[in-house]
């Protein structure tokens, strides 16, 4: 087919596709489809153990799809102070965790249109770096060998989020647009700085001044999923997020799935993330999958990540991460047995930080280069 005829065919598809969407009939009543999925993920380095495990129940009944998930994350870290700037600090093993609840709803309200809603809640540390940083301030201001410094409080990080949106299948089974709006509130583990204050009796005493503890994030994301050819499916995602005391963050990720043959699939992605004044990140990855049999597939993956370091806007002490480069290689297998499907994947990855003047010095052991191992195990059953 010539390009001209190809273009005409596409134009006709456009002209003819939209009315079809607008009058798409409601799906017929059918039995509920239920899925239970459990997954666990481990990442470890000589002084770190990070895990994230969860169970999710999903159900699809006619026009309604919903899922609910319970997740548990655990962080075990061998904390080390930097003696150059923390003479009283001491090494210790710290354990923290996080419990999360997540729910999603997709309700088809017209043939091509779905309304989306989501909610989430967590109690505990959202990530391992905050565990380390909070311990630094705990040792400094609440050292068991000395009285607690006035102004310091034991952190209780937690947060919740809600989201709403719409997904429009503007050409049946071929083209989808999705818009999501989100709001997230977090109570963080704050940073502290030394201050002097006058007591009621007129004496000068030392204290700790906490940074902002409560943060709000507003986000909007827009995505487009398209079947370009009989072998290629693409997804383009654009996101904006605005967090208290920070400039808006823009993120883009493009993903492409290609059926190289009857048994070969390649899944690639690449993206950028930028936030004023100085944060830029880019990343890409590729997974190759080979289907040995209808129930058994092998996977190999490679990923690359690089950024310019987190936003450094703290005057006396910074906990922001210096520039990071990271690589990952992994291999895995997915196999189906009856109604169950299992996936096991793992491999090494490496983090390489590039310390800069005035950034990362306080937490030089947190932002040390590490050789990690990563394993993911998933089990899904449909009934």
């Amino acid at each position, binding site marked *: 087919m010539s390009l001209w005829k*190809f273009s005409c065919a596409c134009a006709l598809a456009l002209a003819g596709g939209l009315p079809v969407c607008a009058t798409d009939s409601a799906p017929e009543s059918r039995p509920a489809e239920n899925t239970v999925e459990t997954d666990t993920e481990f990442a470890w380095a000589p002084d770190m153990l990070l895990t994230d495990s969860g169970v999710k129940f999903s159900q699809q009944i006619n026009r309604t799809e919903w899922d609910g998930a319970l997740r548990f994350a655990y962080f075990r870290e061998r904390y080390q102070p930097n003696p150059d700037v923390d003479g009283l600090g001491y090494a210790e093993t710290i354990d923290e965790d996080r419990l999360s609840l997540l729910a999603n709803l997709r309700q088809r309200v017209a043939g091509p249109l779905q309304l989306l809603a989501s909610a989430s809640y967590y109690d505990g540390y959202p990530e391992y770096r905050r565990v380390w940083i909070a311990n630094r301030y705990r040792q400094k201001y609440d050292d068991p060998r000395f009285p607690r410094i006035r102004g310091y409080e034991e952190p209780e990080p937690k947060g919740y989020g809600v989201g709403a949106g719409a997904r429009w299948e503007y050409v049946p089974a071929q083209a989808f647009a999705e818009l999501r709006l989100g709001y997230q509130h977090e109570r963080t583990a704050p*940073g502290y700085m030394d201050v002097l204050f006058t007591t009621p009796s007129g004496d000068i005493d030392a204290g700790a001044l906490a940074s902002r503890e409560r943060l709000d*994030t507003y*986000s909007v994301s827009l995505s487009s999923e398209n079947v370009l050819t*009989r072998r290629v*499916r693409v997804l383009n995602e654009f996101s904006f997020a605005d967090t208290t005391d920070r400039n808006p963050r823009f*993120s883009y990720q493009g993903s492409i799935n290609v059926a190289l043959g009857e048994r070969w699939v390649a899944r690639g992605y690449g993206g950028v993330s930028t936030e004023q004044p100085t944060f830029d990140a880019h990343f890409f990855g590729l997974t190759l999958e080979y289907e040995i049999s209808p129930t058994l597939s092998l996977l190999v993956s490679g990923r690359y990540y690089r950024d310019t370091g987190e936003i450094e806007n703290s005057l006396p002490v910074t906990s922001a991460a210096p520039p990071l480069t990271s690589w990952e290689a992994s291999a895995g297998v997915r196999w189906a047995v009856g109604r169950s499907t299992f996936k096991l994947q793992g491999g090494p990855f490496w983090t390489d930080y590039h310390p800069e003047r005035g950034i990362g010095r306080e937490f030089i052991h947190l932002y040390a280069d590490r050789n990690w191992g990563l394993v993911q195990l998933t089990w*899904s059953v449909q009934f």
Partner: protein
Amino acid sequence: MRSRPAPNLKLFLAALALCVLSGCVGVEKQRLVSKPNMQFSRTSIYSDSSKIMPLIQPGLVKTGGAQPSTCTLCR
């Protein structure tokens, strides 16, 4: 002197744009792209994403969120 895009390139770009807007592959020709491992799946079984990697690589966090600790005395 600036070279002008070839007519065939213009047609190709127009066709590509129309494909993105309308789709060019009928349902009957979507056998390969409809396989579970060709979908942008929300399930971990067919997803290549990781729950832990965004904790280590902050640029993967799309929704913003907080840095590990906020500044106490900001510039």
